[in-house]
């Protein structure tokens, strides 16, 4: 595909999603009480968007990932929350 074709197919969708992210951050600001590690991880991941090189999706995923390599002693439950609670 040419860049023009990619824009034809995906610009509106990407624009919509970007506004959603902006509104989410505004909503967090308007709300009361402390946030948790997820917001910090989100802000860290967002920095990858302004990078000049390809591989942004990979870098965003890595920003949310547990970077450790040893199995944990016991599963704390079954679910995942989307961000790694560093040092917790």
């Amino acid at each position, binding site marked *: 595909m040419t860049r023009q074709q990619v824009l034809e197919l995906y610009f509106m969708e990407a624009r919509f999603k970007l506004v959603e992210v902006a509104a989410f951050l505004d909503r967090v600001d308007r709300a009361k009480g402390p946030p948790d590690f997820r917001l910090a991880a989100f802000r860290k991941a967002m920095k990858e968007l302004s990078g000049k090189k390809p591989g942004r999706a990979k870098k965003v995923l890595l920003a949310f990932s547990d970077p450790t390599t040893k199995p944990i002693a016991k599963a704390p439950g079954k679910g995942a929350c*989307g961000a790694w609670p560093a040092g917790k």
Partner: protein
Amino acid sequence: MRYIEPHGHMVSRTTDDYQDMVTAGCAAVCEPAFWAGYDRKGVQGFHDYFCQLTDYEPKRAAKFGLPHYAWLCINPKESEDVKLAEEVIGIIPQFIDKPSVLGIGEIGLNKNSRNEMKVLEMHVDLAARTNSLILVHTPHLEDKLKGTRLILDVLKSDKRIKPERCIIDHVEEHTVQRVLDAGFWAGMTLYPESKCSPARAIDIIETYGAERLWMNSACDWGVSVPLAVPRTALEMRRRGHSAKFIDQMIFQNPARFMGQCPKFKLPA
């Protein structure tokens, strides 16, 4: 259009879904054993589930002319209880020779714990002893990267395991490369809210090539779309991919992987 749904939890879907899938061109559906949404109380619960997967569900699919295949295991979400896992793995040989059982799956990790690792190793050993194909579930979200690394270590350290006979499922942009580089197949799961979107799955195909990749809907009782594979085929068409290439991705590739099990046959 013809396609194979290589990963669908049909026990949690309706007959309408079967009808829609067949209407959209589904030529076979493959169902890995998974978590029921609650922990089963004992080995008898798994026995009944394996009967459902290997007897009842193929009959339900056959009503719509759809071949149904199954993979058996205790899911990583239930692998913290090693004693139960041993009992469940102990009954799998009773089912492994059934005509619709393709192999061991979806095994893997969930929270990357030591007990999950033990149970993964037990499953890999069973697959090696029975010369079975392996379908691996990689963990969700923040746990996926670490889990994928650990799973690859386990599979690579067992010299009886051939990478081309294992598919590592639910890969994303941060895990696909290491899976393919190690010689394994990689599966992309098309979910509306997590894992891969159709657009990102096609990005991955365009970036890493279509040699050892497949796509699945992994439809279950959660937010998921049974027609995600044919819808992604439409998205590939919008991007200008040829009918031949789309057929390779959604039909020939899964057929090639699962065809390594002689029991996998498609209607003529």
